């Protein structure tokens, strides 16, 4: 009796603890459902025959796994052919998206390494104002920019070219990339490259051989960020490429699947899976760097 009285507060604490654990995991499951259901539904729909996507009540899990929508997405379609089913443009959108996004990533990395290093290590008149200006470009109304950019690119005859898209999207991803990389540079002690300079290394040599390897997590963060900006952008790609041959994935999907008379939900979902899975895999592998890049500057102890 005495013994149990002694133990009871501990037991009560334990029970409370177990209950709070269960409660936490239940809540996590609720939020996980919210976050993941659309992704689950996309995968589930993509594996159904198109007719089954009109079932009501809907079937949660396909009765039979069926890859016909994926095959339809990969079958090439002639540009401008009168097609009943919208699928088949995906390989082209994918190719355009890759060319544009990879180029944007490379240019953004190069330019933001230079600029981030310049802002971190050198002092010159107007530096602070210039940095503020770069941050300020983030809140220029995107639609105002795109209206004028369209006119400008039209006059330069670079509408419907990769050059125009790459130039515009690089500029779009530069400000935050420079900001992230400057944060990484700021955390490296200056003595490192100063020692290299004393040893007769040029500024560029020291940057390339000593600094760049150290900030490689920051470079991965910038690479992931700029790739996503280019890969996912709709407004700029839609406006600056008018001909469907130049569409990247977002404008391509928009023109193929929105406002049609019949919806091919299964094929649309298969396309959605195919363009999202590579990005999700890359992101899961590299997310820790992007998280570090985005939060390091904003969160300080």
């Amino acid at each position, binding site marked *: 009796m005495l013994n149990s009285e002694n133990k009871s507060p501990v037991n009560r604490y334990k029970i409370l603890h177990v209950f709070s654990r269960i409660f936490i995991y239940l809540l996590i499951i609720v939020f996980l459902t*919210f976050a993941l259901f659309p992704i689950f*539904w996309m995968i589930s729909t993509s594996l159904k025959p198109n007719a089954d996507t009109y079932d009501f009540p809907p079937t949660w899990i396909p009765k039979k796994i069926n890859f016909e929508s994926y095959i339809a997405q990969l079958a090439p379609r002639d540009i401008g052919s009168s097609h009943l089913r919208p699928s088949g443009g995906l390989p082209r959108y994918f190719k355009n998206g890759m060319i544009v996004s990879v180029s944007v990533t490379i240019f953004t990395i190069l330019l933001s390494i230079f600029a981030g290093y310049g802002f971190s290590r050198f002092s010159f008149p107007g530096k602070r104002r210039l940095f503020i200006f770069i941050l300020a470009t983030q809140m220029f109304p995107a639609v105002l920019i795109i209206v004028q950019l369209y006119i400008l690119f039209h006059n330069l005859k670079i509408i419907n070219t990769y050059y125009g898209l790459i130039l515009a999207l690089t500029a779009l991803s530069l400000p935050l990339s420079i900001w992230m990389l400057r944060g990484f540079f700021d955390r490296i002690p200056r003595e490192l490259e100063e020692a290299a300079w004393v040893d007769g290394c040029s500024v560029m040599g020291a940057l390339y051989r000593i600094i760049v390897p150290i900030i490689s997590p920051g470079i991965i963060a910038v690479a992931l960020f700029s790739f996503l900006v280019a890969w996912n952008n709709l407004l700029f790609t839609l406006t600056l490429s008018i001909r469907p041959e130049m569409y990247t994935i977002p404008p391509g999907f928009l023109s193929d699947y929105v406002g049609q008379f019949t919806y091919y939900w299964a094929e649309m979902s298969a396309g959605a899976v195919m363009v999202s899975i590579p990005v999700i895999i890359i992101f899961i592998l590299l997310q820790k760097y992007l998280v570090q890049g985005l939060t390091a500057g904003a969160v300080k102890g």
Partner: protein
Amino acid sequence: MAKNRFGIGLKKNIFGVYLISPAIIVILFVLLWPLIQGIIYSFRHYVLTEPQNKYWVFFDNYIALFKDQLLLISLKNTFIYVTCSILGGLFIGLCVALLLNQKIVLQRVFRGIFLTPWIIAPVVFCLIFMYMFSSEVGIVNYVLQKLHLTRDFVQWFSYGTTAMLAVIIINIWAQFPFFFLMILAALQSIPTEVIEASVVDGTNIFQRFFHITLPYLKNIILITTTLMTIWNFNSFDIIWTLTKGGPVNATTTFSIFTYRIAFKNFDMGYASAIAVVWLIILTVFAYIYIRIMERGNVEF
């Protein structure tokens, strides 16, 4: 601040300007030049389909805009869209961050999973949501009926209120990961001794949240909210894919309004005037944002 505090000659400092210039040139050319042109064009008559017919109209575009009832409608819609999206995103992001900050298994895996909505292209997830919210075969209507919350099919994109609601829910889904990411990072920077000390002092979980956690989060919430306000003001993809501003302008925000005038009516002068009004509104948020981003913390 001495120029040569690191023993570097002036030559090296000029080299810094060279390093920065390529990025600056790209930004000037693609972002600043169009902005200045936009402000100039807002005082001109310029319709893309009649390129010879350009002339100065001074404030005519603005006068027309202030008489346009769409200005108030889009102002109201933008306000509702931005406010609800941010409150919803902040609330869910905060909840998920607090949950994942507990000692739980697979914390890193959960963090990765919760970030996925943020990286899928808006057009792509909007198409999936369009299927989910479709009136006759959509899973949302099915679940709502099963739960006896609605009797009939909700025609989500046919009525103003439900269309706005759907667009906001989808936007919250897309952006809560960013709130979650920033808040979780801030939570993990709270020294554990502070929490442990207050546990010893016998505080309950709510006291700890309001007196310890929330003050630590104040900065990051302000930074993230300001940044998200700016991004949401610019938000175009979700609404354009789902409703194009309809039904009857019920989801027409500033970006949709401007885009339609520019690329459906081709009235670049008028479109620029709308965007300039919007730029002026955004300047307030821009000021806060710059103060924060430049210093890395908030001091007013």
